[in-house]
């Protein structure tokens, strides 16, 4: 048990340098944002409500990714597979076998978790670039299977007609559903990252050798983190399918896996809400830009490069840094 505390101490040291865990400080603006989220349908048009819903779902996806990237220090490039499996799970059970919505929803998440377990067992044995490439390979493999097995999965047509239950069919009601799930899921993830388990993950990122010497079985912890990440990615996918009433294999391509990566880098990997901010910026910007040009990729690419060079901590990291500097100056004066 003492080892736990030791590892936790390493993690906490890293933690204090980046994530402000002070409950009091963070609560104000979180409450404000939640209030804004609840008030949103009254204030903004239906179309932007849809964009907001999409941003929330993709934020969840990005948060699940950042568990592995920001907290654990690994770069998975196959998360879209779990996202897609969540969506396909609910879509297939709902449309092919007419199973109850909530059961299908849970099953979709379960499918993603299971896939995370199976794939994770192989992936966590690797580090660095090999880890990334293996996750990419598995992600593509799952994509190809779903794409090619058109008798079972509908192949490249995808699956249409994924309808939520009656009381969630209107855009406003489904939006509230997304908001609720997002808040709960984000809260759970936040608790995970700020638990002893989370500190150990951080310790592994900072100094994996020392953590190993402390007797922590790295691979096992990484596997648990991998499965958790896959589960939440699957949750995001399961939220998505009934939202636009369909799923398609394109949601599993490795290009899709790149989206939470970009969002996290943009927002800032070191802070819990970094990926959320990054996702919001990208989603709204994307919807806005697509209104008058289809040259979105070059804008996205340029944004990434700018962030890599000038805002290494992401947008949120930059903001926090500025605030901290001002605080330091205040304290000194």
């Amino acid at each position, binding site marked *: 048990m003492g080892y736990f505390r030791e590892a936790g101490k390493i993690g906490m040291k890293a933690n204090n340098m980046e994530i402000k865990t002070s409950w009091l400080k963070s609560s104000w603006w979180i409450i404000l944002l939640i209030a804004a989220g609840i008030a949103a349908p009254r*204030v903004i*048009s239906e179309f*932007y409500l849809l964009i907001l819903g999409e941003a929330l779902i993709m934020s969840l996806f990005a948060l699940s990714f950042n568990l592995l990237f920001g907290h654990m220090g690994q770069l998975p490039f196959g998360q879209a597979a779990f996202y897609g499996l969540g969506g396909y799970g609910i879509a297939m059970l709902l449309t092919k076998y007419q199973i109850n919505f909530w059961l299908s929803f849970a099953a979709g998440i379960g499918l993603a978790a299971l896939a995370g377990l199976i794939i994770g067992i192989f992936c966590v044995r690797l580090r660095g670039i090999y880890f990334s490439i293996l996750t990419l390979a598995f992600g593509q493999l799952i994509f190809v299977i779903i794409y090619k097995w058109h008798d079972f999965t509908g192949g490249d047509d995808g699956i249409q*007609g994924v309808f939520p239950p009656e009381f969630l069919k209107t855009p406003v009601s489904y939006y509230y559903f997304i908001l609720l799930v997002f808040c709960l899921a984000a809260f759970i993830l936040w608790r995970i990252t700020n638990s002893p388990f989370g500190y150990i993950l951080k310790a592994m990122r900072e100094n994996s050798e020392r953590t190993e010497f402390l007797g922590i079985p790295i691979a096992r912890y990484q596997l648990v983190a991998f499965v958790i990440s896959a589960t939440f990615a699957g949750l995001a996918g399961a939220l998505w399918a009934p939202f636009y009433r369909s799923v398609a294999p394109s949601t599993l391509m490795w290009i899709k896996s790149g989206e939470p990566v970009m969002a996290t880098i943009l927002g800032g990997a070191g802070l819990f809400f970094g990926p959320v901010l990054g996702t919001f910026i990208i989603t709204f910007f994307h919807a806005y830009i*697509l209104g008058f040009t289809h040259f979105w990729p070059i804008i996205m690419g340029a944004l990434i490069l700018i962030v890599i060079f000038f805002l290494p901590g992401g947008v949120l990291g930059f903001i926090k840094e500025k605030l901290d500097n001002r*605080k330091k100056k205040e304290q000194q004066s």
Partner: protein
Amino acid sequence: MKKLAGFTVFLCILTMLLVPVTVLAGTKASAKDPIRLGAIWDYAGPCYMLSESAVQGIKIAVDEINAKGGVIGRKLDLIVRDTEMKVDVGARETKDLILREKVNFLVGPCSSGVALAVQVVHAESKVLRVTCMANTEGQVVDKFTPYVTQVVPNTYMEGVAATRFMNKKYPAAKKFCTVAPDYEYGRREEAAFAEEIKKLVPDSEILYQAWPKPGEKDYTSFITAIMAQKPDAVHSSLFGGDLVAFTKQAAPYGFFEKIPFIALYDLPVFVALGADAPEGVMAFGRGCFFMDPNPKMMEFVDKYRKARGAYPDSWAVQAYDSVYLIKAAVEKAKSSDTEKVIKAMEGISLDSLRGKFTIRPLDHMGSVPCYQGIIAKDPKYPFKTWKDIVRVPGDQVWRSEEGVREVWKKTGVTR
């Protein structure tokens, strides 16, 4: 605390900036408001060029109609959106067109897969879409909804017509191979071929089916596998860049001299292949100008060349026809109200660039023609075209109404 308040305000402002505040209450559409046309197309992969062509055709039609006073005295507004050939983006952009841009009608897309997903969205919102490119039968047969009309020959019609043409040219052929892009469109067309050839030649067999992925660049292994089977003829639904690559790679093997072959050889393919286009090979298509050089079509060729500096391909032709179909239906209904327009559209006849066709009331399928021919040099143009052209009116090759109802029984469509 002051810093935190400042930060919170900053965050709120950021959120506000990203989420424009608009009042929910809309104004009632007045009779003189423009009729808004939403063009949803796929600017990615093999669909990029086709989408560009189609949008050009639409633009010419819209400009023409507006110059003559619009439709029932109202101008046509065109809004174009890109699906990036992705189903999720397509669904989202369709919602954008319907909710934010408040379009009255939709035209597009190119990809059959995107079309099916888009269909769910606009059908739920009760907006009519005319499809002039994505031609999977799934749209009007399996997953029928009254909010779709099709003016491009569907996969069944095209497959059947091409099969009959090939069978007429090579009646002794019994052993076949197929090569088609492995997605909805390819699978459907080859299924139609398989069904029809069995009817025409009961003892025919399909020895091998090649399923390259759409966008495949290297067909060599498929080509050698097909040639190893020594078929009497090969039916293919390859098109666009895929067909270009396939043709170039098959030619050195003497493929086209040895094996009768039919595929979607149309204008963009001929322009790309140039002298490499294999003469004497069979082709099918949907209405490039050289397939149906009637006076109306040739007029369109001039307009198109003036606007774009190129010859119109079947994609532009069909897109142009779609806009005129909408115009005709709105004029017949004397309103842009969707339900009235749908009623007016059922049974309507259009004098299109491809001749006259009618929209069948049962499944909203247009009796649009399918074309076949033989590739040949053409002294009039810098690219090869067809000779021995055959034009098959759609009602000769579409599924009969009983046939459609049979499929509906299986897929649960009630009408």
